Structure formats: structure tokens, C-alpha cells
């Protein structure tokens, strides 16, 4: 069990480090990853 614990613990730690680096969170409200282009550069009007 202790060996499995070691492996699982280190894996979890690695996933944690990556999640923190990537800014992942299970509980956060992520905005849409889909990028769209607003008509006209520097345009100040947003169309839904």
C-alpha cells in the first residue's frame, strides 16, 4: 500500500503543479474559450 501511496501521491502532486500553472480549477466559472472577432478593430460596440 505504501508504494501505491507514493506513486499516487507523486502523481497527484504533479497534476496539482500543472493545474496551478495552467490556472485550472474545478470550481471556477470559465469563460468561453471560443474566440470571435469584433467587427472593426478597436470597435467599441459589441453585438451578441
Amino acid at each position, binding site marked *: *500500500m*505504501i508504494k501505491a*501511496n*507514493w506513486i*499516487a*501521491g*507523486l502523481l*497527484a*502532486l504533479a497534476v*496539482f*503543479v500543472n*493545474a*496551478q*500553472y*495552467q*490556472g*485550472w*480549477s*474545478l*470550481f*471556477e*466559472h*470559465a*469563460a*468561453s*474559450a*471560443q*474566440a*470571435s*472577432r*469584433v*467587427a*472593426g*478593430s*478597436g*470597435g*467599441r*460596440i*459589441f453585438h*451578441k
Partner: protein
Amino acid sequence: MTSIYVVCEFCRSTLLRSGEDLQNLGRMAELLEDRSLIQIGSKGCYRNRHFLVIGRIQLRYEAGIWNEWHILFDDARTAWLAEAGGELVVSAQVAVSDPLPAFETLQPEMSVSLDGRVFTVTNLATARCISGQGELPFRVAAGYDVNTADLRGNDRFLTLDYSETPPLVFVGQAVAFSDLKLEKLKELGVPAAGGAPQVGARAFNCPHCAAPLKIHSAAIESVACDGCGSIIGVENENVKLLARAAQALREVPWLPLGSHGTLHGIDWEVIGFMRRSTTSEGTQYPWSEYLLFNVQQGFAWLIEYQGHWNFARTLSSPPPVSRGQAKFKRDGQEFKLFNTGKAEVTYVVGEFYWRVVVGETCAVDDYVCPPLMLSREVTDKEAGWSQAEYLEPAELCAAFRIQAPPPKRIGVYANQPNPLAERHRRVCRLFWQLALAATVVQLAFAFLFASQLVLRQRLVLSPLNDEATLTSQEFVLNSRARALLVRHGTSLVNNWVSLSTTLVEKTTGESYLGVQEVSHYKGIDEGESWSEGSPSEEMVFKAVPPGNYYLVIEYELGTDNAEAVVDTLEVVRNPTGWSNFLLLLIFLAVFPLVSRWRRNAFEARRWSESDLGGGQDDGEAD
């Protein structure tokens, strides 16, 4: 020299030393020759003081015979070296100021206070000094009767000798044979001075069935015949039938008598086997005890119960524990009462250092601190303690070179070490190591890769416009943001607002959309305040490239409350989240929780066998 009486080795006359003259006081009874290794002329060392054995007396009591060797130290002081039941005790006479209790008032386990020290009565015996040898400080003549009481306190041994008034007091210590560094001992097979030839193991025939039997030690007082079950008393060169064919059922010891094995670096021989049992709630619980012998170490026991083995030895300094005491500490270890009961001898075979009788009973208390168990056995004349250590069956088989599989272990024994306890400790240690590493990583993200507030702006969401669009100030991302947190902290009360937040890169027009619903209601209902929802909401944009950005916020405000809402807009670059850290700790904690549960399940099985229903402390360090 303090000795005033000398017993002639050849004619057994007792001579009184009076200055340079010797006066013959008459002949003394013959010594009952035994197989003690000590003899007149033996030398040894006790507490770095050399001594010489100059005399001895022999005493007989109902359970057999013991020797008291008179020893003379280099500084001309004398003492006694008692040799009984495989135990050696060096003691010297002392004067005490406290009055001594009468012999008749003493009981086993009774506490006696002498000169500020408390002793416990461990043995009461009415003996007869039957013979003497060598130089002695008193006259033995034809013998005399004596009541003696042995008491123990801490590591001290006290003997009250009621042969005189007031009683004589001897104080000493139990000592290991090897610690005495004895020299000039009797050599096995070599005739002792004036005595019969000595052998390591004396052979004789059962007086009832003529089966060949052996005696290995001077301390052996009885032999149970394997052939017919008779119990034979051993007094001297002769043997006496004590109980004829006393045992109808014959039991075969799993470990044969005569087996040799090395345990704790000492070579032991199995010389006796007995079955004992205790009854609890109508159920009989039998176990086996094997008596082990080593010439220098004396006696030890191997105890087997349902496949569980213990190696036990008598304690020379028993703990001061009253009857029924639930727990006590000894050498920093806590022992807990596990079982109490009455043990009865049901079967014996082989040699024993007391007059063993089938049917003899004693009260037993077992205290456990795995892998140790301290047991107290009390009769009306004796109170003794032994310390047992759990022995793995494989270790026993290796020690006695036994190929056959040992009896299968059933259940969890009282002092069986919990194999899951050490594993649990290791799992806990690993948890703390990983938790520390996770904390270091979390702090590094919080401080070294610090989050940065790139925008903070107050916006007013007006109820006059039920749908409106606001644009934030611009902010710059110099490099790619792994995450960009947009937080709306509103003054919303009893209302809701729907927010569509679009992150727009000014130059390229790239945009990212996020929709949020903020709702916050609160009030007091029947005197109790309540609240629902939250006035603030967060949203994260992932992997945002560098550039100049602004936010376009389109909102729809509810009509439940007519007040304008102030929205404090914050944009944080690379925020450090704590939820991952907490999740990791929860995940890591699963392992010690599971191992703790398994460890406690083992302990629950152990204590389910106890009729006292004790248990482990939950406060055990994890």
C-alpha cells in the same frame, strides 16, 4: 572470617570455631546431592566485587528443595546466593528499624513497608533446613524449621526469615547466572567432591511403568511420565511417585520434548509440556506451555494459543500493580489489562521446577502492550509475574529447525503486534511529506509567480436601463496570461443581474465571451435572518495572448429592487487558486484515513477477544 561453624566434608561433623580451637558439635545430616553447577570453592563476581563460595545450606519445602550458598567477598563481608526455581538471588542481612509483620499475617501480593521502601509479598514458604556444607555462620545440626517470606520491590529482593525473633531481614537482588561470572563450577560428568558423579541429564525409570525419564536441572522438582501419565517427585537421588497414572488422556506436544532451539541467542531445550485452560462464560480456552531449559539461563516458557506463540520468562522485578488495576506504565510503555481468569493445569508431561499437579489452579491477569504481555499468577502461597514476547511462528520454526507447518493462527492474539500500525505510521509520514511539498508549491505560486491586479473599476448598473452596455478602461497584458480572472463585486441586494462580459483585444478585435448571473436575496423570517446567493461572481478567461484589452459588459438588471447597483470590476492576471490545493490535501488524506481504519479494525479484532473490552486510545499519535 565471620564463619564460626565448619562442616567437615568427609565425616559431616560440625566444628565450632573458637579462636584457634575447633570444637566438634556432632554429625550433620547428609546433603541431598543435586545437579547444581555451583560448589564449595566456586568463585564469582557481584557488583565488581569478587566472592568465594564457602558454604551452603539446603532447605526443603513442599514444592521441593533449594540451596542457599554462603559467599565470602574480598572485603571479608559475607552474603547468601540463593538458587531456587532457576533463579539466583544475592542477599545480605540488614538491620531494619520498622517492626516486621508476623508471618501468619502475610498474604501474597500484600504490601509491606520497610524503612521507607514498599515491598510486595511474592512467596510464603514453610521450609526445613535439612543440611549444611562448608563454613556457615550458624549451626545447622539436625536441621531446623523456618518460615520464610520473599518480597520484591522495584529491583530489590527481600527475604524475611522467621527462624529467630525478631525475624532476620535479608535484602538483595536477582542476578543472571552469566552476570556472576562464576568460575570453578562443577564440570558435567565429573564426580563432585564427596558426592555422586554429576551428569548433565540424569536418567531414571518411571516407578510406575518403567519408561525411561530424564532430569536436566538441579531445580527440577517433578517429572510427568510421557508413557503412563504418572507424576514423579524428585527429591534427591531417589524419585517418588506422586500421582499414579494421573492423566487418562495422552496429548502429543507439537514441539517434542528434547527439541533444541536457539531463541534470542540462547540455546534452549524443551524439557516439559503442560496444557492449561481457563473457562469464561462456560467456554473452555485451552493453551499449551513448553518449559525450556538452559544450564546458564535457567528456565523459560514457550506458550501457544490457537497458533499464536509467546516466549516468556519470569520477572525478577515485578511491577507494583494492584489487583484489577486497568493499566500501568513500565519502562515508558503502557500495559492494559486484557484478561483475568483462573488457569487450571489439565495435562503435564516432562520436567518441572515445582511439584506440578494436574488440577492446580491460579488466578491470572494478563496486561498487554504488543508485542509484550505481562502476566500475574497468584496462588495462596505465591504471586509471580512473567513477561512474554510475541513470537512469529516462522521465527519459532526457524529456531527449532522444524519443517512441518506450525498450527494455523486463528484470530488476533492479545499481544500480537499490529502489522498495520507501522504501515499507518509510514503512510502518515508520507502524507506530511507530500502535504509539505504541496504547501511549498502553493506558496511558490502565491508569492513567486504572484498574481497581478491589472484593472479595478467601479461601474454603476442603472435600473433605468433594463438592458445596457458598459465598456471598461483599457489594460495591457505584456505577456500571455495563463488565466485572467474577472470578478464582479456588486452591491446587489434582493435583486438579480445578468452579465455578459466580453474581453476584447483592441488591435486585433479578438474577443472572449463569458456570461454570469448574479443573484443575492436576504431578509428576516420569523426572527431568523436568511440569505441566498452572493453579490459577487468570478469568471476566468484562459490562455489570453498579450495585447491591449478592454471589457464590454452587457447587463440586464432585475426589477425586484429599484436601486442602482455598484459593480466593482476587478481583473486579475494569473490568480492563484486554493481549491486545487485543498483538493490535493483531501486526496492525500484518504490514504492515512484508510490505513488508520484498517489499523483500528485490527485492534478491534484484538480487543473483541478481551473479556474486559478495553481498547486503544484514539489519541494515539498519527
